[in-house]
């Protein structure tokens, strides 16, 4: 029995209501999934146009990604910058989540809100500030500069995921370990860390996905040598839309979901426990 239809089942009113609900649900699901479903096959088109019907399967656009200098370089850059930003944000984010765990630090709540701010502050605003700062620090158009800028955006995702997994640890487990004589470092290494690991890994995947998808800050702080895959996609979407974009999108989707599947495993189908990530821009 549905929450919104207390009519008796089987009456014409209930049937019509059920049909409307079904149609509405199907329409919204189509709206949500159609873009994802529509773009993937076009990665394999033979044509130079991004339109249906497709003109036969081909890998020519993946070949373009692998052979064109601009695309090849941008993919390598994305991997370098993504890895750097992931390591940096996962380390500082995990440490902070551990520190904030028991609210022992003064102003824990305020700190946590501030740490999540990079999710909310418009990317363009942060981009302007970063551009001014980097011009003074000499970090403009450097790999280190882009990695640091991306890591700032990644930190909230690490913090949220690690805090979530730390909060779900039963304190009795750690108490039991120390009452059995384990020193604090052993408790941390053998109990806390393994239990927090799923959260840390999920945070790292979201961090990597965030860096992979980042365009705006990259436009402000990266030079031509640090062009990432996302920035290359953005540029070609503005100038000459080619199916290479669909191939790049395919790579990004497959990479993100493969990583997610690896770390989330079965919990993928317990969506209510997953974290949302507000997307900048």
């Amino acid at each position: 029995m549905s929450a919104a239809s207390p009519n008796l089942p089987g009456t014409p009113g209930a049937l019509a209501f059920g049909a409307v609900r079904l149609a509405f649900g199907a329409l919204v699901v189509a709206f949500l999934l159609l873009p994802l479903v529509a773009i993937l096959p076009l990665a394999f088109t033979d044509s130079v146009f991004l339109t249906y019907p497709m003109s036969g399967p081909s890998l020519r656009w993946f070949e373009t990604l692998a052979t064109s200098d601009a695309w090849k370089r941008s993919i390598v850059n994305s991997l370098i910058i993504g890895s750097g930003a992931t390591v940096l944000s996962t380390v500082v984010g995990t440490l902070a989540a551990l520190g904030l765990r028991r609210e022992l630090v003064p102003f824990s709540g305020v700190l946590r809100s501030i740490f999540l701010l990079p999710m909310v502050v418009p990317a363009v605003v942060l981009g302007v500030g970063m551009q001014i700062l980097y011009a003074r620090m000499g970090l403009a158009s450097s790999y280190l500069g882009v990695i640091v800028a991306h890591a700032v955006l990644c930190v909230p995702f690490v913090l949220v995921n690690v805090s979530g997994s730390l909060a779900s640890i039963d304190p009795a487990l750690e108490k039991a370990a120390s009452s059995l004589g384990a020193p604090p470092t052993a408790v941390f290494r053998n109990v806390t860390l393994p239990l927090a690991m799923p959260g840390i890994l999920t945070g790292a995947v979201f961090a990597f996905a965030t860096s992979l998808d980042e365009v705006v800050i990259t436009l402000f702080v990266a030079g031509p040598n640090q062009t990432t895959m996302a920035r290359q996609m953005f540029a070609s979407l503005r100038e000459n839309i080619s199916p290479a974009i669909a191939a790049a999108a395919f790579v990004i989707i497959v990479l993100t979901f493969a990583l997610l599947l690896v770390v989330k495993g079965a919990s993928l189908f317990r969506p209510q426990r997953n974290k949302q990530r507000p997307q900048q821009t």
Partner: protein
Amino acid sequence: MTIARLKASLLVLPLIVFLGLFFIWPLWMMIATSVQGGTVRLAFPATAVAIAQWNGDGLPSPDVQAALIQDLRAEVVQEVFGDAVRSLNSQQAGFRTLLPRTMTALRNAGADATPKLERIDPRWSQPSFWLALKRGMPAYTDANLLAAVDLKRGDDGTIAHVAPDMAVNRAIMLRTFIIAAQVTLACAAIGLPFAMLAASLGGWKRNFLLLAVLLPLWTSLLVRTAAWMILLQDQGLINQILKALGLIDASLPLIYNRTGVLIAMTHVLLPFMVLPIYASLIAIPRNLMPAAAALGARPWQAFRHVLLPLAMPGLLSGSLLVFMVALGYYITPALTGGAGDQMISSVIAFYATGTANWGMAGALGLFLLVPTTLLYIVYGRLSRTPLGQA
């Protein structure tokens, strides 16, 4: 306990330092740049110090003249000098010829000579030029902040509107708020019933609906925007389907206009509406609606007086979240909108990357940063679940 506190603080310290350096400081520098005195000060540093002592009556003391001579003899970057001359000329016509002429005369006179400025050009004996110079180099200025909302300071210091053909920023700010509001409404109109539907179902059906919300959320924003560009183009799937159904004869213009922006942004932000509403709905005891029905409430009454009030907190935080994030959108309007659909972010990007006018970019950025931060504070107060947790 104190040692535990110290340890915890040490763990948090790296992130505080990291975000302090690369998040708070850049934002602060952006704000500082927007109110700093600007290029005239940069081009005439000695004069800026000396002229601050002059009260503006008559002609300034010989010290100020000496400082100006020193500044004009010093090597200065051509662009900085050019910007300063333009800025001064807009305050007092004549600087465009006066400054280069004075500079050339001083260089020709040799480093040891101490010429009189009035001899080089009689305009230096007019107080109005010195006054414009003094006004042109304040330590702080509200010029950028005023310009961001299409205002300026007149010669007498009063605030006035800029010429109507130059006044574009207010219109773009208004457009930004309107688009964000439209997207929020669209998300609420779709998200509320969809979340109710998901909460009313059970088992695999509920999981399927939630997965349909989460899959786009986990997909790159750029990929989703690209997908909408493909779907909405004139030869795109949507137009093809509508034609095949015989609903239209010619392709509908769905992209590079407001329609495209609203469709793509609604798609991107819909999950942020559905998830908070869903979270507040599943917290409702399952027997409330049957209880309302048993007590004689018609379905509409039960919805209006039981379900909707209980869904309200989720609807409110979802709306705040969507509106707040939508305000700062740049990529999606840039790709799916036309020239008349660009939001404030694109103007900021234009000033920062197009013309390197960081003062204007910072001022406009401040007008985007302040409402976003205020909404975030309200969101933090209202929502039971902190940001990032559905």
